[in-house]
Each structure stands twice: as C-alpha cells, then as structure tokens.
C-alpha cells in the first residue's frame, strides 16, 4: 500500500448531512481527521428533491470537514425507499472427476447467482454473499471439499439509477468522484454489531429523519436489508397534525417532551402548545403527544417485523443477539421498550466505540463511521482483486460517467 489516503465518508440524510474524514494508511487503523454535521436541505424521505439545495449543503459540509486536508476519495451512504433487494441462488455442478470443488466451480456458482438482470433504470449497489452449500450442507469454504452440487446465495441490493445519478452529480459538483456507494443499513450494521452477534443473529435498526434502515445478520452473514421510508420527520409531522401546531414547535415538543410509549400518567401532565404563554397559547395533556408518537413508532417496528417475516427470517432463536437501535430517533425516550414489545426480541441502544472522540459520539455519525470502515476494508479488497469496485464501475458505465483508472 502506497501513501495514506484521505477518504471522506458522506451521508446525505433527510435531516442531517454527516461527513467524516479519515486517513487510511493501509493498516486496520483509521484516523479520523475531520468531521461535520449540518442541517440537510432538499432531501425528503432519504431522496434528493432539490439538487441545488442539496449540493450547496453537501459542498459546504465537505469543505468544513476537510479543513486543511485534500480529499482523495469520497464514499457515499445511500438510503431511500427506492432501494430494493432480491435473493438469488447460483448453482454449479462440480466438474472435477474426483468431485472436488475447484475455483472454477465456485466462480460459476457466483456468476450464476449474479446473473439476474434488472429492469431499466435499476442498478445493483451490492451483491452480498451468503454461505456456500455443498449438496445442501452449509460449508465455510467449499474449495477442495467433496461434493456434487455447489450452491451460493446472494442478497443483491439495487437502486433507482436516476436517483443515484443525482447523488453522483452532487459530489461531482464538488469536483470529486464517488469511489463507492454503501447502503446505510449495511454501514451502520457493520460497525455496530460485534462479530459474535452477527454469528448469533442480530437485527440493526437505524431510525433517521426520513427513513428507517435495517439489516439482519444470521450466521455471520447479511441475510436481508431493508428501508422503511418513515423516520423522525414523520413523528414530527404527526404531532403537527394531532396537536395542530407548526413543524418547528412540533419538533421541539418531540425532543423536549416526546416518549415512544404512552403512559397513563401522561394524561395529567400538561405541556404548553406554543410555549410563549401568550394570548393564543394553551395547554394540552402530554398523553396527546405520547399517544401520537406511540402509534407511529409501533408501526415502524411492525413494518420491519412484517418484512422480516415475509422473508421467512423471523425466528427469535435465530436472532439471538436481539436488536441494536441507532439513528437520531434512537434518542427518543422509551424507544427500546416499544421495539422490545413489538419485535419480541431483546433490544439495546447502540454503544459508541470505546476511544471514539466525544464529538463523534452521536448516533448521526454512526453510518459514516461505518462507511469509513467499509472504505478501509475496501482497500484490502482492491488490493486482492478488482471485485470490490465492479459494481460501481458498472454503474458509472450505465450513467455514462467516465471513471479514471483507480491508482492505488
């Protein structure tokens, strides 16, 4: 590995733009040398609605995080309801006369799993490998093992191409190319869940401003990811409707008085609606706010549960390590209790990595920390083979973007 690179991990979220600047020197170490967290404009439900506003926000966020450093590469976190996935199984008949699996068989099974073509305007973001099976039995490494039929499953995540084009444009406007895109759930999950948890099965749920991104690990593999395009903004909007107040005050009420579940005592606690005690101001019972929030939060977890059930992965024993909650909305009091009740799993809030800078100990930074870590692992992958960059290269081609040969 040559000289250290400065990598910017960028998440263009619905409510916040998070940028983290890391110095990668080829070791397992990542030095965080810059960061910024700013208010996002022009993004709704995780999708860019106003290119110019988003560009302005992102460019100033990049500049402010970069400081004196020159950014070499940009890695982007991606969310939004346009993200979908499909699970494909590729098979290969072991060709060796002695029925020993060779690399050529492995390659064939992988190629077979990735062969499914997408409709126009959809592009693959990740092909996430699941375990190999040899004659129906899960094997860690199939090479040199004996068997007839080799199978491998891939959870392939794809996205709306025009929408991605917008993200690339935003970064392109800063004079940078996007090195790779990582879906938010994967970035957060990767950094938050311990390896033992991933082995035992764990569900990581990241509730942001406009979306809820989740990832389910089982047996050490990512078996499913998903996006529910509901987040903290919806809670605020619900409070607007229910309490008949403006967005700003609703947000304030959510932050100051919000709780994820409704308690009978809330009926007796009063909150001022406007908060300035003037002629139009009045009190309402806290129960109004908590009932509204409880309905929304419950629904979010119900949808995640339904999606996991639909994929036939909802088995409590297979998610033995339970649920890890993160994202800005994880600050909401009592969120764990509601998650526990709805999902029927043990729930904990995400911890921050020990030694992490105090300023970075905010759930808003979780995804970009994960993206930076992805970039770190990515560098190894690039060293070994070119596979890691395959998808984005393909994507760039689809988008008609010329990408200069990466020089590492």
């Amino acid at each position: 590995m040559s000289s250290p690179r400065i990598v910017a991990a960028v998440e263009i979220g619905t409510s916040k733009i998070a940028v983290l600047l890391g110095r990668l020197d080829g070791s397992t170490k990542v030095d965080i040398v810059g960061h910024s967290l700013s208010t996002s404009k022009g993004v709704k439900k995780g999708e860019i609605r106003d290119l110019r506003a988003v560009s302005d926000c992102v460019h100033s966020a990049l500049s402010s995080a970069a400081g004196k450093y020159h950014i070499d590469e940009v890695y982007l976190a991606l969310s939004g309801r346009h993200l979908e996935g499909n699970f494909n199984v590729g098979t290969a008949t072991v060709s060796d006369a002695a029925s020993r699996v060779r690399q050529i068989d492995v390659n064939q099974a992988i190629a077979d799993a990735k062969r499914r073509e997408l409709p126009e305007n959809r592009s693959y973001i990740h092909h996430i490998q699941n375990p190999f099976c040899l004659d129906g039995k899960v094997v860690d490494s199939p090479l040199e093992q004996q068997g007839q039929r080799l199978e491998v499953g891939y959870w392939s995540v794809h996205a709306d191409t025009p929408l991605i084009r917008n993200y690339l444009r935003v970064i392109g406007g800063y004079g940078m190319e996007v090195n790779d895109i990582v879906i938010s759930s994967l970035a957060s999950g990767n950094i938050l869940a311990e390896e033992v948890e991933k082995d035992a099965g764990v569900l990581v749920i990241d509730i942001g401003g406009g979306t809820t991104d989740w990832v389910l690990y089982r047996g050490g593999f990512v078996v499913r990811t998903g996006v529910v395009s509901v987040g903290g903004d919806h809670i605020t909007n619900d409070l607007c409707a229910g309490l008949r107040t403006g967005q700003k005050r609703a947000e304030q009420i959510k932050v100051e008085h919000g709780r994820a579940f409704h308690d009978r005592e809330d009926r007796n606690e009063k909150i001022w609606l406007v908060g300035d005690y003037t002629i139009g101001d009045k009190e309402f019972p806290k129960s109004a706010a908590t009932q509204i929030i409880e309905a929304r939060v419950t629904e979010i977890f119900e949808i995640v549960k339904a999606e996991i059930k639909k994929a036939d992965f909802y088995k409590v024993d297979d998610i033995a390590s339970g649920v890890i909650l993160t994202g800005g909305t994880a600050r909401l009091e009592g969120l764990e209790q509601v998650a526990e009740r709805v999902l029927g799993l043990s729930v904990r809030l995400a911890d921050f990595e020990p030694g992490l800078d105090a300023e970075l100990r905010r759930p808003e930074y979780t995804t970009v920390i994960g993206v930076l870590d992805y970039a770190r692992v990515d560098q190894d992958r690039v060293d070994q083979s070119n596979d890691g960059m395959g998808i984005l290269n393909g994507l760039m081609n689809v988008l008609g973007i010329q990408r200069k040969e990466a020089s590492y």
Partner: protein
Amino acid sequence: MENVPHNGTELEASIRVRVIGLGGGGSNVLAGIDRDRYPHVEYLAVNTDSQALAHSPLTHKVLLGQNITRGLGAGGDFEIGRQVVEADRAELEALVAEVDLLILVTGLGGGTGTAAALLLAELATQTEATVLAFTTQPFTFEGARRREISDAALADLREKVHGLIPVPNDLLLQETEEDDTALSAFAVADKWIGKGIHSLCAMLFETGIINQDFSALRNLLQRRGGKTIFAIGAGKDEDFVKDALSQLCDCPLLHATERPSRMDRILLHLVVGSEMGLAKIQEVVTSISEQFDSSKEIIVGAVMDSRFAKSLEICLIAKVEIEPTATTSDNAGLRNGREPMETIGSLGLENANMEANPKPVVHVSKLIGKKKKEANEDQDEFLFVDLEAQRGYFEQTDQNLYNNEDLDVPTFLRRGIKIKLK
C-alpha cells in the same frame, strides 16, 4: 344581528350565492344548516337517490340520472356517477349559471357527489363565478379504492376551483367522543362545514366596524388552483377570546399537516360582541398573524353582533398560489379591469376603510413571478422544489404506500386513535 343601516346593502344583496350539496354526503350537510339566517343564499341538493332527496328539507332539489339509475342512487360507484352527470349535463350547466359565488359541498370517494362536483367545477370554469368547494375524504378503513378515487378527484378539483377546503374524515373522527362511531364523524363534518358557510355569509352580508365584502373574498382567492386554508373558531362568555383562538387553531378544516408555513394572502373576518373594541380586535389580529405567520397581506373585516357582550367568532381564509399553469391567464381579480395596487397596511387595521366599501385590494403575489423564473432556470425534475419547502411537509413527494396505506399520513389518524387535546 347588527341592524345599523349602511350604504353597502344594495351591493351586497345583489351578490348571488349558491350553495350546492352533492350526493348523499353533501345534501346532508345542507340539511343541517340554518338556511333562514341569510335569505340571499340559495341552497340546493343534487342527488341520484330520489328517496334521500324526498327526505331532504331543502326546497330546491335536483334529481339526476333518472334514465340510468331510476332514482336509486349511484351506489357509491364513481363510474355510474360519471355516466349520470354526463347524461344530465344540461341540468348541471343551469346550476352554475348566473351566480357570483358557488359553494360546492360533497363527500369524495363515492359516485354521485364525486362525479357531480368534478363536472360542476368544470362547467363553472366557463363562467365568472368564484367557486369554493368543501369536500370530505373517506376514512382509511373504507379501503384503498375509495381513497384512490377521492385523491384523484381532489387533485382534479383543486385545479378547477378557486378555493378547496378538504376535510379528511380520519381527522374528524378525532373530534368525536371516545365511544362514538364513524357516523358521528359525519355529523362533525356537517357541523363544521355548516359553520364555515355561515361565517362566509356573515362576511358577505353583514356590515359593521370594518367591512369586507365579496370583492375581498374574490381578490383573496383570485385564481383557480393553489391551496386554500380555512378555519373558524368561536368563543363566548368568560374566556371568549382565548376560546375562540384556541378553537381556530384546533379547527379540523384547517388540516394542519398541509398547512403551509407561508401564505400569500389572509382574509380574517371577525364577528365580535359589543364588549370588544378596536384595541381588542387589534390584539386578536396580531396574535393570529403571529401564529399564521409571514403573509404579505392580511385583510381584516369585523362586524358586531350586539346580541352578545362577550363573544367572538373568527373566520380565517388564506390562499397560497401554486405555480400557475401555462393557461392560467384568467385572474379573477383582474377580470373587472382593475389594476393591481398596493396592499393596505400590514394588518389592515390602520388603513382599513371604516366606511362601507373598502378599496378593493388586488395583489399579485411577488412569490409567483419569482418562483416561475427560478423554475425556468433550473432544468427538469426539480420544478417544485423551493415551493415545496413552504408547504405541508410531505406534499409533492411520492405517496408512501405500504399495504395500501399511505405511511405519510399520521398513523394515529389512519388507525382512528383519538387524541384528547383537553
């Protein structure tokens, strides 16, 4: 009622106001209104169901589709409703003729009411009439099909009328008591829409402290399309000011989720008891303008109801223009050949005419011109962007459908969870 003679009587009496209740829902609303209070206003019921029509206390009734449904109603089937109104187009055409203010009241998502509202609004675009529509939207539990029809009709109507006041039934359920059924939500809708129509009439037909009349309403609404905000509130006795303001903010017609943070024009009409002087009126107006924020123009009218001492009724109508379509050359305010002129003072009070006829205020929003230009500069898909930021939060974004429910609609509304604000 205020009986002081004034020189505006003749003009106001000559304004032709027609309120049409369409289909079962719309007709029911009108049945519950005190129709004698403003004798100048004409009330009509239009339905395909002859039996329902026969039971209606209204004197003017129009039965549609005798050849098609033979008086049996459209059964909530929009397609049948559409056939019926097309067949009786001529009769409907007569209903929109020779009228200055047309108020349509209907429940959307069904057959007759939905189809008739669309056709009447369409026909009215050929006339000079200013058209307001009060519509109720089906409950979420009534299913996706009804919602789809209702949503499509709502979007269509919005383009054709000058002011659209949608009232989702989900929201009205909030107004009912814990053990009440969906039927009570209908009753609540009837009550609020009825009150709203009365408040409008009070502004049009009563005069007093600061007069506003039809021209003010017409100027406020100006063009078709855009977004109308409508709210009413009333208070009596001890805390009458506080109660009225509180009710105004809670008014289900306000539909807070779609409330834009900025409005182009606000028209505020107050009916005050004898104890309320100008200073107190000023205070109320200030409080409202603070809460409803940042309008360039707030026009105030006030009349006195000398029957009461401590009493206040507030009616607020505001308009936000949405990007005009290419064909929108008709501008109601300019139709009479008036020139646009500067607005009266920020609150309207200092400069408002204390005589019977205030100067007509015609104000073409600077916002519209500006937005249009910006939109042209930007290319393709980001046309609505800046405007959107001022509107209801999730408006202009795609519907967020999951199992046929729009997740952007508050969960508590979709599930009928009642939130007690007191």
